[in-house]
Every structure is written in structure tokens, then in C-alpha cells.
């Protein structure tokens, strides 16, 4: 498994947040779960704009915790939601979901380290 999180960035965040670091990671887990849910719902209901916005938000928060690969995938999804039809989005959403799962595992592992 490739490195899911940017270690250096995460270390910077920890220095900055001090005691708030755990809360920050908790918030990320909540936010990302909610966004992923939104993406799934939007795909089902065919709401491309909602899907694009949720992907955009997921991308931003992924970047902020150093989940670079996830951020890149989210950007792909965000662009695809604008450019391609609904049918082509399914596999991309699946890839985002899978990557997010790995990121979340890494985040949880990070929490447990301290």
C-alpha cells in the first residue's frame, strides 16, 4: 500500500494544532464520510451539480490533511461531473470511495499512534 498521507504536512498540522490535533482528525473523518455520502446520493439521483460540489469539498479537505492521491482523484471526479455523462461517473466514484477508505484507515492509525 502506497503512503496515503503526506507525513511532513501532517507533522506540521500536529505542531500547529497541539491538543486540537485529534479533534481535527475526528472532524476530517466526519466531514469526509458526509461528503462521500453526498456523492453517492447525487450519483443515484443524477444531480451532477451536487456531485461536483461534494467532490470539490472532499478534494479540499483531503489536501488539507495531506491525502494527495485522494485529492487528485476528487479533482478528476469534479471535472468529470462537469464534462462527462452520468454513466461514466460510476467507476470513478468507486475509485474515490476505495481511496477514501484507505485514507480513513491511515487517519485512524495516525490517531492511535498518539
Amino acid at each position, binding site marked *: 500500500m502506497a503512503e496515503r498521507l503526506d507525513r511532513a504536512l501532517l507533522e506540521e498540522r500536529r505542531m500547529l494544532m497541539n491538543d486540537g490535533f485529534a479533534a*481535527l482528525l475526528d472532524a476530517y473523518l466526519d466531514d469526509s464520510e458526509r461528503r462521500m455520502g453526498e456523492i453517492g446520493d447525487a450519483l443515484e439521483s443524477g444531480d451532477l451539480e451536487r456531485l461536483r460540489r461534494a467532490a470539490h469539498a472532499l478534494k479540499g479537505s483531503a489536501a488539507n490533511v495531506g491525502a494527495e492521491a485522494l485529492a487528485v482523484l476528487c479533482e478528476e471526479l469534479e471535472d468529470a461531473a462537469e464534462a462527462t455523462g452520468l454513466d461514466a461517473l460510476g467507476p470513478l466514484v468507486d475509485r474515490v470511495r476505495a481511496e477514501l477508505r484507505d485514507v480513513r484507515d491511515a487517519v485512524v492509525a495516525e490517531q492511535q499512534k498518539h
Partner: protein
Amino acid sequence: MPAASPARVLVAEDNRADRLLLSAIVRSEGYHVVEAVDGCDAVEQFRTHRPHIVLLDALMPRMDGFEAARRIKAEAGERFVPVIFLSALGADDALLAAVEAGADDFLGKPYNQVILRAKLSALERLRMLHATMQRQRDEISRHHAHLVQEQEAAKAIFDKVAHTGSLDEPCIRYLISPLAVFNGDVLLAARNPAGNLYVLLGDFTGHGLTAAVGAMPLAEIFYGMSNKGFGPGDIVREANRKLGAMLPKGYFCCAALVALNVHKGTIEFWNGGLPSGCLFRAGRRELVHLESHHLPLGIQGDARFDSTTRVLEVEPGDRLILCTDGIVEARNDTGEAFGYERRDEIIRRTRPEESAFDALKHAVYAHMGASGRDDDITLVEVTVASPQQVPIAAPVQPVENGGGSEEWRLSYELGPRSLRSSNPLPLLQHVVTEFPQLRRHAGTIFTVLTELYSNALEHGLLRLDSSLKSSAAGFAEYYRARSRALVELDGFLRFDFRCEMDGAGGRLYITVTDSGPGFDYSAKLAELDAPREGEYHGRGLRLLRELCQSVSFRGRGNEVEVVFAWSGEHG
């Protein structure tokens, strides 16, 4: 860096994790953080906490960052509140929308502490600069308002001092901006005790209050002295002295003063630095320039100041025009000045029954066009009235009968030095009007005194030949000769007054004696009884006989006595 009290920064972001992170970064830079969870909340928090800098996520529920930015900018009004948009907006149109909504900067994710620090401190400096600029602008506008207020107060005071005097009389037409005093232009008109019309046009250097301060003493001197019977030369001398003492170096007043005596058919003028005035002899269609022969008021010391006036003859219907340089320098679209030639041409073309004033005014405005019109145009036209239209003496306020003794004698003798340098009439007028009964006739008495004085001085002492005045050229020569003779004058002139009461009425005997050789008055009196048409000399004597109960010569003709009588009835 934030100063003593930290600047407040609003962080509006709907992702909780991103919000926590950003707030922590901003806080670590020393700012006070206010958080908002969406666009609506951001606007509300802005209203409540008045943050100094706003960080806005572009995509937020309920209200997006674009709308929130617009509302916050509107809410801030004149205050500069920098807005940083969060999340790198990839597409150009989204970037444009953010800028249009009021974005001052952008910050992408992942958030970078160093970059954010740089942006915040740059915007904070900009904000401070803006606030300083606004403070200075407000200060300037406060100063300006104060200045306007001061000018209004100054104008109110000036208007009281200057009032309109005689400007509203039908023989005068004038054009002057209500705020002209701040352009330095002053127009004054008054009648002296004998009813002669004095018009003064002044143009002070400078603008604003500096130009206006000199106008007040000038107006006071003009009204005060013309009212007391001083001549134009006395008035400009006093004005020069006062302004010279008062005005700072480099400030002065170009001015022209004209005194019109319709009974004698003369104007007496002094022009120091103003554009030449115009005397238009309507009947003869002749234009005479009233040139400036002197330096403006307030430049020369009293000893060097030349108050010599010039005298020209006028006839009813003649026009007298004075203007400041605003007219001759008025420019059209191509920068061409209106100039003297255009002015003179328009005046020359005026028909006798027309007013040169209207023609000039329209021509100047037409020349300038709508764009160039300013308030710097000051113009006055006086039409010479016929003697019948002008009462001999200015009306005097009736006064309550003071009673007391009004039987008195007074003798006042002037030697050569006094005769050369001063005019005794204002003093005598002042003495005479101290007596309540005589005050009612102050104007008439002033006219009588003026005639007696000029006869005794010009003919008795200076030996001037009044028949010179029969021609227009001789008229000018007469006044030149008068100035020359005055310098070499030797002798004296004496006024003897005797006042007798007779019930409510009375008589004032005025005898004027000069040290000259006298003249053959019997021939003169015979001539007076059979006057020839168009004769200039002898007008004075005829006037005396109209105003007095009797006029008689004595001695060798160097002594004249008039009796001025009045009855108890008013009028």
C-alpha cells in the same frame, strides 16, 4: 502585524475540519478569529463582530461565498474589508465571478501557513493604508466644510459692511457674482452729501479669504468718507494707506473710483491698475478711456502715493462703464481672450437709447460659451442722469429738534499748506451737521459749501479762467492748470459762519474770503442774468442762487456772502 488590539478575522468554511485548521493557523498569527459555518452565517457574524479581514470558502450551503462577499462588501460601505477566497478556483469564470463579487485575494488548499501569513499581513497593511487615506480624506473634507462655513460667515459680515449702497438706483446696471468678494472683486456705490454718485470697483489679488479681508476696510472707508463729503482723491489716499498697512506683501487692490456730478456735468476719476474704464458720450458717439495712471492701492507709501484725479465733462445720457480683468481676459474654447477691442467695439455700436451693459454681458457670455462661464465677471454701467432727475442734496433723515442755542459764529481760515494738501469740506460739514436744525439741510449746505470753496480756490486764488471750460479740450486743460497752480499757491482762504435763530426757522450766513485780487462781479452778475446756451462757467453761481436766499459779493470781489434760510416746517 496586528497592533495592540488584534485585528479580527472572519473564517467562513462549511467543512468543519478545514475550518478548525484555518482558524488555528490564523490564530497562531496573532489575529482574533470569528467563525462562520456557511454564507448566511458569515454575513451575520460580519454584522455582529465587524471583522477587519474576511476569509470565505467559495462553495458553501445556504449562501455561497460569492453572494456572501457581495453582501459583506455592501455592509462594509466605505470601510475597506479585504476578502480572501478559499479553495483554488480552477476555472477562469469562477475566478472572474469571485473578483466581481469583491475578492481581494485567493488561498488554495492545502492551507499553507507561510503563504497565508504573507497574504494576511499584506492585506492588513493595505487596510491600514486605506484607513489612513480615508481619515485624511475625511479631515480634508472637514477642513473644507470649515472653510466654506468661514467664507459664509465672512460673506455675511462683508454684505453688512458693503451692503448694496446706491447700486440699486435705476441709473446703475451691474453684474457681479454673489461670491465675488472671494474672487477679490468689490463693487460699491454711494452718494455724497451733495448727491453726487460715487462708484468704486476694486479687484484684490488672490482668492478666497485673503482676497476678501481687504474688501471690508475698503468698503468702510468708501462709505464712511463719501458720506462725510470727502472727495475721490481723499478716499483713494485713505484706502491706499489702510490697505498698505493691512495687506501682506505682494497683495494689493486694483481699483477705479468715479464720482459723478450731474449738476456740474462732470466725472472725476482715479484708476489704479484696473482695466481702462469707458466713458461713452452717447450723443457724440465718442468713447473716452478712463485709463489707469496709478499703481494699485496698497503698494506705495503715503508720501509717494498719487491721488491726483482727472475730470471729464459729461452730458445726460452718457454711459460710464467699468469692469475688472475678468471680462477682457474671458476666454473662448480656443483660448482666445475677449479683449479690449471687442469691448470697445460693442460699446461704440450701442445706440443712445440702448444699454451697453446688456450688449457687453451677452457678448462676453457668448464668447465664453456654456463651458467656460465662471464667476469672475464684474461689470458696472452708470448712465448719466439729467440734473432734473437727481435731487441737489441727498435726502437726510429728519432729526428731532435738539433745541438749545443755535446762535453762533465760527471762523475757519486755511493757509497755503492746508489748501494744497487737504479738503476743508468734510470738517466743515461735520461741524455744521452737529447742529440739529442744520442737519436736516446738510445736503444742501454741503453743496453750497462745495461751490463757495471751489469758486474761491479756483478763481479767487488760483486765477483759473472758467471760460476755458467752454470746450471739451479746454475742460481737460482747466484741470491740468488747476493742479499746476495749486503747487505754487500762496495766500489764504477763510470761511465765516454766523447762525441766527428765528423761531423754529433761521438763517446761516456763510462768507468766504480769499486773499486774491478779486474780480469785476457786476459784469459777472449781469452775465448770469442773461446766460448763453451751453455755457459751462457760471453754473456754480447759478446753483448758489437757486439754493440760497441771497448771494452777494463784497470788497474787491474777493469776498462772497450767501444766506441760507430755512423755515420751521419740515421739508
